[in-house]
């Protein structure tokens, strides 16, 4: 039974801080070993999870969905209305009530996603977030000076482009749909997917160019 007692866990944290080895890798190893020894986790549970996750889930899945939306207006409509359904339609998710919202960049709108309170990210669909996304610097600054943060990523916006920052405060998740770059007429979906970067799906990369992609 969980106690749901805030002060009790604060006290447990103090004990852990004082008594566990300071090296993070050793702390992680100690806990995993104990869980395996106690039979709480099977020996290969962590390996199997990682194999399964790495094999099926990553930024390329998001890139595939975005590339399809660039070549198929009906699919783009579906991505706008129910982004989870768009992932499911391409066999990249199994449906369910996971709330995913796709927000579309345009000539006059730029979208940026953050989780100021922790680290929420659509990792079940496009894999683990980059470490900078979870940093104090990004979480603190993205909602207050998004244009300054974007400049550090090399994104310079004209004054007439509106910035929309999406703070992931519920169980809903956000993915940015970047604009299809000019000069890619006639490209295959695979080629187009190769242009889509992980950062572009968060909004810290705006102008996609050949050679930058995740694929």
């Amino acid at each position, binding site marked *: 039974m969980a106690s749901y007692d805030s002060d009790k866990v604060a006290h447990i944290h103090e004990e852990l801080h004082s008594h566990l080895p300071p090296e993070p890798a050793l702390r*992680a190893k100690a*806990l995993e070993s104990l869980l395996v020894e106690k039979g709480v986790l099977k020996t290969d549970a962590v390996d199997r999870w990682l194999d399964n996750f790495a094999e099926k889930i990553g930024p390329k899945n998001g890139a595939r969905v975005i590339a399809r939306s660039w070549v198929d207006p009906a699919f783009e409509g579906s991505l706008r209305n129910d982004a989870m359904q768009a992932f499911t339609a391409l066999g990249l998710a199994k449906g*369910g009530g996971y709330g995913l919202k796709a927000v579309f960049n345009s000539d006059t709108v730029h979208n940026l996603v953050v989780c*100021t309170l922790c680290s929420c990210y659509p990792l*079940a669909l496009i894999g683990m977030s980059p470490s900078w996304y979870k940093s104090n610097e990004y979480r603190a600054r993205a909602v207050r000076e998004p244009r300054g943060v974007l400049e550090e990523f090399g994104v310079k916006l004209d004054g007439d482009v509106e910035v929309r920052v999406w703070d992931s405060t519920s169980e809903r998740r956000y993915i940015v749909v970047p604009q299809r770059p000019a000069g890619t007429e006639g490209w295959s979906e695979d080629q187009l997917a190769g242009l889509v970067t992980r950062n572009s799906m968060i909004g810290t990369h705006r102008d996609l160019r050949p050679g930058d992609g995740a694929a």
Partner: protein
Amino acid sequence: MDTVHDIGGRQGFGPVHWQHDHDEEAFHEEWQARAWAMCMCMFAVWRGNPEVWTLDWFRHVRERIDPIDYLTRNYYDQWVQSLAATLIDNGTIRLEELLAGSRPRETSAIAEESTKSGGTAEKSLTDRNEFTGSEPAFSVGQKVRTKMSTAAFHTRLPAYVRGRVGVIENHHGSQPLADASARGVIKPEPLYTVAFETTDLWPEEQASRDRVFVDAWESYLEPA
């Protein structure tokens, strides 16, 4: 609780160090991947059983890390400590065992479950139930003001939007209120996205047309 985790809009932080991340690299070090996967395996075992765990409780457990540790220790290291604290609190392990090691035992039913769920990672990660709650009290386009305070425990209303006026952008049906889930109580409530003009949030942004969108439960809001 207004712990240090509620960091949105705090000033004085330096550049975002993004240059070390690469799309094909989900984790920088192996222990980080293992730490995260260990948490995911346990979450998969516990999901749907609020007697032992909810995700919002886990979030709150992380929020109760010492503030200096919260700001300075590696993200995955914080997850390890929060998982350990969660496991000690709900009686799965004892602190002394973690410090001293433990004697081997038979593989238990919970271990079977952890392996089974490891085989369907993407399913258990995306599995969310649909919840039925009350009819929404606010409509799209309506002006609302966020409350100055919500819960004394865990809440998902960031400090930087409290007491501010925004506009209902969208309504998303009902989701369990995070403040209640963090206490193990599943209480569906209408959920909205609320749009705030940055001019209403930050004194230095008086010429901006930019907006910040926050998801907010109905009890966070009142008519403006």
